[in-house]
């Protein structure tokens, strides 16, 4: 190969490499997009089963049930219009408590039960996950604090 054709091969190789990376990247991107669904969506059957999604809402007062001998816990979340049950096994975040807005990542099982792999309630105690705030607003029963929340930017 002479110099010029080598350069062509090099450029082609780079273009090919970037193209492959783009295709693989977009595929991975598509597969890992997590869609958010409110309890109202889930109740209406708009959320897919057996597919990882995010749900969010306020933890319903008095709904938290712990298994006596394991770390399994079942609680309800609500957007003040509908509520749904969430099952989780493990340690809950510090800021988890009744009345607190949380987001759970998991999937709806065949029996309709949502099983979470992860429960998020980070940031400070006045924080409302944006999805939850929006869902509350959408259901027309905005909870106090949701709309008053002003970002303090305390998270790094």
């Amino acid at each position, binding site marked *: 190969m002479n110099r010029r054709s*080598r350069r062509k091969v090099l450029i082609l190789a780079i273009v090919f490499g970037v193209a492959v990376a783009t295709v693989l990247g977009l595929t991975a991107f598509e597969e890992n997009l997590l*869609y958010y669904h409110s309890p109202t969506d889930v109740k209406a059957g708009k959320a897919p089963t057996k597919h990882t999604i995010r749900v969010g809402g306020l933890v319903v007062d008095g709904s938290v049930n*712990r298994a006596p001998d394991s*770390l399994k816990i079942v609680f309800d979340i609500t957007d003040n219009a509908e509520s749904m049950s969430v099952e989780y096994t493990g340690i809950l975040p*510090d800021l988890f408590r009744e009345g607190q807005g949380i987001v759970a990542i998991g999937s709806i099982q065949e029996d309709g039960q949502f099983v979470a792999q992860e429960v998020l309630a980070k940031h400070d*105690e006045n924080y409302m996950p944006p999805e939850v705030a929006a869902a509350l607003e959408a259901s027309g029963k905005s909870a106090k604090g949701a709309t008053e*929340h*002003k970002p303090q930017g305390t998270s790094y």
Partner: protein
Amino acid sequence: MIPELGHFALIIAFAVAIVQSIVPLVGTSKNQTALISLARPAALTQLLFVGLSYAALTHAFIVHDFSVLYVSQHSNLVQPLMYRISAVWGSHEGSLLLWTLILSLWTIAVAVYSKNLPEILMARVLAVMGMISTGFIAFMLFTSNPFERIFPTPLDGNELNPLLQDPGLVLHPPLLYMGYVGFSVAFAFAVAALLGGKLDATWARWSRPWTTVAWSFLTIGIALGSWWAYNELGWGGWWFWDPVENASFMPWLVGTALIHSLASTEKRGVFKSWTVLLAILAFSMSLLGTFIVRSGVLVSVHAFATDPARGVFILGFLVVVVGGSLALYAWRSATVISFGRFQWFSRETALLLNNIIFLTATTAVFVGTMYPLVVDAFGVGKISVGRPYFDTMFSLVGIPLLLLLGIGPSIRWKGDDWSRVVRTYTLFFIVSLVAGLLIPFMVEEKLNLSTGLGLAAALWVALTTLKDLFSRISRKLKLSMSYLGMVLAHFGVAVFVAGVTVTTTYSEEKDLRMVPGSSYNISGYEFRFQGTRKVQGPNYIADEAVIEVWSDGELSGELLPQKRVYSGKSNPMTDASIDKTFTRDLYAALGEELDGGAWSMRVYYKPLIRWIWLGCILMTIGGALAVSDRRYRQTVKNKVLEKNTAAASA
């Protein structure tokens, strides 16, 4: 009174910043020495007033002046002194002030340490940095004034988020900002060079050490943030692909591309306009990072709507800086001619490939971070991008990058014989591949391709880096500090990759329900839960669990994880306890009290996790070594060198 002085000092600094950005530029266009020489004193005056302003805010925190809104929001009477001082940068307004202070410090550093810079270029550099400063001070004065008063004065304040009350987080933001803001120097040099229309190898030599220092700060800053998340959050992870983390990672990726591209430009005079573009891009990413973390856009895109002034200002500033510099680039870059020639197989090509890979990685992170924000802003839906996307992307770009890293430093400039390189490294390639695949095979007794490839890559980078070093020593070549710095940094990459691979594959973690007296085995360590006790801290009360760790029938340590309740806060905070050694960490975090004296707790075994941060420390030290190279301090010899490079590349 003092807060007003602070506010007033900030206003003066604003005026000075405007002078610093305009007058020297007028001077350079009209060729008036008096105006040009105003740049340095203006920068110094600005540092003085920004410093005063910063001191005033710190003073308000120290003396508990709760009449200042920002102080009352982020500190209270029982908060320890260290966390009152660090609370200054605990939130939006104060962190902008710290940003501006650091920018002033960098500006002065440039003015002091670049004495050999032509006056005109220096004036332009300082003017550009003045413009950035003007933008930031205006942002504070008009939308986010840290000195705003509150009436009536509260008797006590809120508290700094307890998560931020950790020594790691005292240092993390300043170090990160040193990195972010440090890229403004490379940016200012690039813009100044475009303004003057003169971009040569000396330009690269001037910007290179500054960029490397900024990169080193950013590296250690990010590593410290990761270390803090691991210690403090109680989740045992070291990187979460959180938008906040990605915001700091994007400038790092572009910055890494930039320091490699600067090498080509300095040594060989090639890729000049590309390097300038990277300098602009690196600083743009820093600005984007600062703003997406600090503006609250991550908490909610609609936070923009609750405080439109901030949102509009941020967008406007980004458009002016990024758009303005890109327009200047488009207008001027045609005058920048790269004259160096090189063959397809050469160091130049290797560095170019490095840049392409790093920018691919940046794009991947950018898309994953910004796409959900954009979708949300247009009200199309609420989505987030899962971690597996980022993990996939980075293993994808990691393989070619690490492969290239092994051979790149030994390929000659201008052109090399590819068969020589292949001959030299085939053995190394086979040895690392076989050894890498063999290690997980021996541990698990089955083939584990991803772990094997990770270890093979780490071995490959370590062995080839050392091979190049020893072959240079045996050929009695002079080893410059910048070469040794590179060796150390690349070796750090190998350590990092080994740590990531082993931790990811062989960590064990378990959420447990434990009653006092019960025990649990994990990777050969027995965790025995003895019970809990109450502990009183300076501004919190904690439940502390006592967990004995036994291995081979002997007591090897004690873990004391805590659940703290800070005064003024109703929610508890987890404080994990970690037994650290070079080869493994044992980690315990306390959950909550269950019925019957039982506690939920999380225990981890994390092999080689220290190596992740050790790798970052090595990279940082490598950067520092590279900067100490003599050639950056020589003034007279520079000119000789310049002629040589010009002659060599002509």
